[in-house]
């Protein structure tokens, strides 16, 4: 497969995952805001902005709807949902021959839905309906991808993009919540803090799954364990890294004798740390730097993918 094509598939997938994440975080937090006092609203939205990587030129103005509008519709802001979906479509368009026509139609439809959304609606309402339809559109795309595209190398690059984005997103959310709330670790959460933990779980679509495992007692340590180490829940960091490594192994296999060993080592080490780690050990150490470490490793894996598959130098390629 051409390196450029792999690159396009990878970013198409990452951008869609990012758009979904942003849409869900906005929806969850706009919804929670209805139940809250203004002081916690300020903190929450500053956290939302931090979770989305503090998008350029966007400071907390005190108006949640205005921020949500920018993060949704402002195509000049690269983090907005519109920008992410436009970029995903742009990437898909360049590899139209590699993806199925069903996939193309899905992502194209999603683009038109977002780009032509009627903005004449009043600015203090951002319809939850709209955010949910974005999430639904992306879910449909993923379903169509799995059932209409051959699960070869291209599909594996789509998996890599999706799970590396997801693992980073979940890890950085955990990191932010940890910084603010883990002071009183161990005790079941109450009152307004209870809402924050619900917010965290919902931002990862994990509320129901958590309740099934641990009941509705929201205990911060268990939440951390669930979102970090659960091997079955698709938005948990461990699950994402498992999928990421499986996809990387499959790509490595296609390449035959390629020297992908540094990448195998990076991904394998991260996977082992999550797979064999215990929550008690992690809690006894510095949780913040553990989470930060996951983010760094994701970044390293991304760079190594580029070094090996996409941006390699001619000399190393000819020598190998």
């Amino acid at each position, binding site marked *: *497969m*051409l*390196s*450029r094509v*792999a690159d396009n598939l990878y970013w198409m997938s990452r951008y869609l995952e990012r758009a979904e994440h942003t849409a869900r975080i906005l929806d969850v937090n706009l919804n929670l805001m209805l139940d809250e006092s203004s002081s916690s609203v300020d903190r929450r939205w500053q956290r939302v902005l931090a979770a989305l990587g503090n998008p350029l030129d966007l400071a907390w103005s005190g108006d949640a709807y205005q921020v949500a509008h920018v993060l949704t519709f402002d*195509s000049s802001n690269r983090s907005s949902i519109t920008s992410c979906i*436009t970029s995903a*479509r*742009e990437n898909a*368009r*360049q590899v*139209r*021959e590699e993806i199925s*026509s069903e996939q*193309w139609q899905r992502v*194209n439809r999603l*683009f038109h839905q977002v*780009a*032509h959304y009627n903005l004449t609606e009043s600015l203090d309402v951002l319809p939850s309906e709209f955010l949910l339809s974005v999430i639904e559109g992306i879910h449909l795309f993923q379903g169509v991808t799995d059932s209409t595209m051959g699960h070869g*190398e291209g599909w594996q*690059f789509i998996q890599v993009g999706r799970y590396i984005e997801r693992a980073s997103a979940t890890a950085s959310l955990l990191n932010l919540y940890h910084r603010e709330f883990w002071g009183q670790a161990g005790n079941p959460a109450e009152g307004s803090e209870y809402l924050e933990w619900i917010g965290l779980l919902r931002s990862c679509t994990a509320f129901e799954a958590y309740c099934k495992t641990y009941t509705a007692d929201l205990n911060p340590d268990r939440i951390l364990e669930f979102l970090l180490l659960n091997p079955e829940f698709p938005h948990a960091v461990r699950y994402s890294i498992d999928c990421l490594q499986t996809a990387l192994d499959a*790509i490595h296999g*296609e*390449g*035959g004798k*390629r020297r992908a060993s540094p990448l195998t080592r990076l991904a394998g080490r991260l996977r082992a740390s999550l797979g064999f780690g215990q929550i008690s050990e992690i809690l006894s150490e510095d949780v913040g730097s553990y989470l930060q470490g996951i983010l760094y490793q994701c970044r390293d894996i991304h760079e190594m993918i580029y070094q090996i*598959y*996409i941006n*390699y130098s*001619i000399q190393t*390629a*000819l020598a*190998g």
Partner: protein
Amino acid sequence: MGSAELRRFDSFALPNYLIDGAYDEMFEAIGQPREHYVPLLETLAALPADEIRRRKHAADLSLLNQGITFTVYGREEGTERIFPYDLLPRIIPSEEWNHVERGLTQRITALNLFLRDIYNEGRILADGIVPREIVYSCKHFRRQMRGLQVPRNVYIAVVGSDLIRLPSGEFVVLEDNLRVPSGVSYMLTNRRVMKRIFPQLFQRYGVRPIEHYTQALLSTLRSLAPEGRAEPTIVLLSPGVFNSAYFEHAYLARQMGIELVEGRDLVTHDNIVYMRTTTGLRRVDVIYRRVDDDFIDPLAFRADSVLGVAGLFNAYRAGNVTLANAFGTGVADDKALYSYVPKIVKYYLEEDPILNNLETYLLNDPAQRDHVLENLGSLVVKAVGESGGYGMLIGPHSTAAQREEFRRRIIADPRNYIAQPTISFSRAPCFIDDGLAPRHVDLRPYVLFGDKVTIVPGGLTRVALRRGSLVVNSSQGGGSKDTWVLNR
């Protein structure tokens, strides 16, 4: 044809069918269809207009769903339109086609010999058949090609020549496209759609197939591989998704089963071209390039090009990679050189041209220039290096201001223009507003030249869909129709 059927057909708009001096593809005279159009007319007569409309709609939908579109594109919004096409086929009897086929084979063979000659010994220039200044002043002449050996001595592997039919019914060549001719994907998809719309008519007619075009293109490219490369890797080089013909590039690559690459996918090292794949660098042997000379290698040609591959030309010169078409072929489709093609055919092949040229005035000749400047209102003036219907003045349809503008430009740079009489080239019936209306058409057959010459029967018939218009280019409101060459 039975008169009863003709009357039924009359009921939808045939009385207004215009027949004048121009050759009509369907009618010899009013009420007298040519023999090979009779089955089509009978079929149409038996179909209610509603049914024809329904089939047309089904065909449009089929094209849109398959994504057979050309793009009008901006980052903010993406719009894609289907290439307009007409429902009624243009039918060419086999003996007429055989004549065209022989003529094109002869012409392409001679033009290829000409290219080889001017980039090597230059005999035809030394013998004074073609003036040196015409060749050396052409902006598509590439001095970098001097003395370079190209595989099998084939410079022009893929050609699309534009033919028109004169009022006498004779096919003449309007221009040769020897650089990167496009449109062949529309020929192929038109045919697919037509088979779905008129299956019975197909059986009844016995139409010669064209499906093998992509396969023939692939074997042509393979036959041009550098020596010693038994299993050559062939790629199609496209300028990328913003090019209006991107659909065609992707379509052809997929049909041939080869990679569609862009300049940034290719690298050269030690005069060998590689493409970057996820499994490492893979050597490339033949490049079917759809990027113009100017943009293909920033080291050899335009330095500001970002579409090209640095070092490609050196790899080509070293014989490690073949490009189809070769560089510098544009000198032979220059519109001023065009007028010398009959002499070129005669010079190399010692035969009379089978297909004639249109009469052409060269404007760097003072006598011819004066004649043209006096008669701008009745002539067509074209810029020699342009294509796609740009840089053209159609005298009878022009305003005084436009004529004045061209007069100025001609005087400033006479080498850059030629003039031809305005020809009312042939018309074919089109299905427009529920009736038959005649529209001007040309014909672009696609010629492949590798170890042998292959011409798929037919080609792309382009239609000037606007009433009375003589411009068939898709960028100027033209459309297309399927072209049927008959077995017998």
